[in-house]
């Protein structure tokens, strides 16, 4: 699915999400709900740094961080990672975090889906119709006439 369309769907289904940006792990913006590309780049860079800090903090666990929620006084920042692709979102304070994370993961999952190709219509070879009675009779008559 188109990333912009995927984010538009996310905003439609999740009223708790204020702003969101999809980016590659190194910080390259793929799509965002923000008005300007500068703001999107700023948010993606900050989110990439946050994810990097989370990796370092969780290094003792020796397991990759796949989701993150930072609960601030007046808002939450939520990050979900799927391979090299990451989505970061801001929400109002005390969101239903399970629901928000599910929606973000669904949004990333929609990106991973391959585009639907138009089905190829294979032309089947036409079956030869069995000779009708009339045609068979005519052929028989011709053969018979030739023999006589």
């Amino acid at each position, binding site marked *: 699915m188109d990333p912009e369309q995927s984010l538009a769907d996310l905003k439609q289904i999740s009223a708790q999400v204020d702003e969101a940006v999809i980016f590659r792990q190194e910080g390259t913006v793929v799509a965002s709900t923000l008005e300007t590309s500068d703001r999107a780049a700023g948010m993606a860079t900050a989110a990439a740094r946050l994810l990097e800090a989370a990796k370092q903090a969780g290094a003792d666990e020796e397991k990759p961080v*796949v989701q993150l*929620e930072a609960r601030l006084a007046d808002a939450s920042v939520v990050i979900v990672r799927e391979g090299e692709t990451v989505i*970061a979102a801001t929400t109002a304070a005390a969101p239903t975090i399970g629901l928000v994370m599910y929606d973000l993961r669904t949004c990333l999952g929609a990106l991973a889906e391959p585009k639907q190709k138009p089905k190829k219509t294979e032309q089947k070879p036409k079956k030869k119709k069995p000779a009708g009675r009339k045609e068979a009779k005519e052929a028989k008559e011709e053969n018979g006439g030739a023999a006589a």
Partner: protein
Amino acid sequence: MRRPSWLLLLLLAAGAAAAFYRLRNPRRREMVDLYFDDGSLATYGEDDPDGVSMLTLARAVRHAASSR
């Protein structure tokens, strides 16, 4: 027996109102939850150096998203 003054009653009422408001609107504690790929969770608060740095970066994300 001496009756309690109006001032004392007023102070008691104000204290009760403040306690009620505090209970209804607790201060939201800032913290970061990390979810790992095996489903485990680690929480970092403001009392942890890693938590402080992650909260600072989270504020930067929030600021970048909201600045106009």
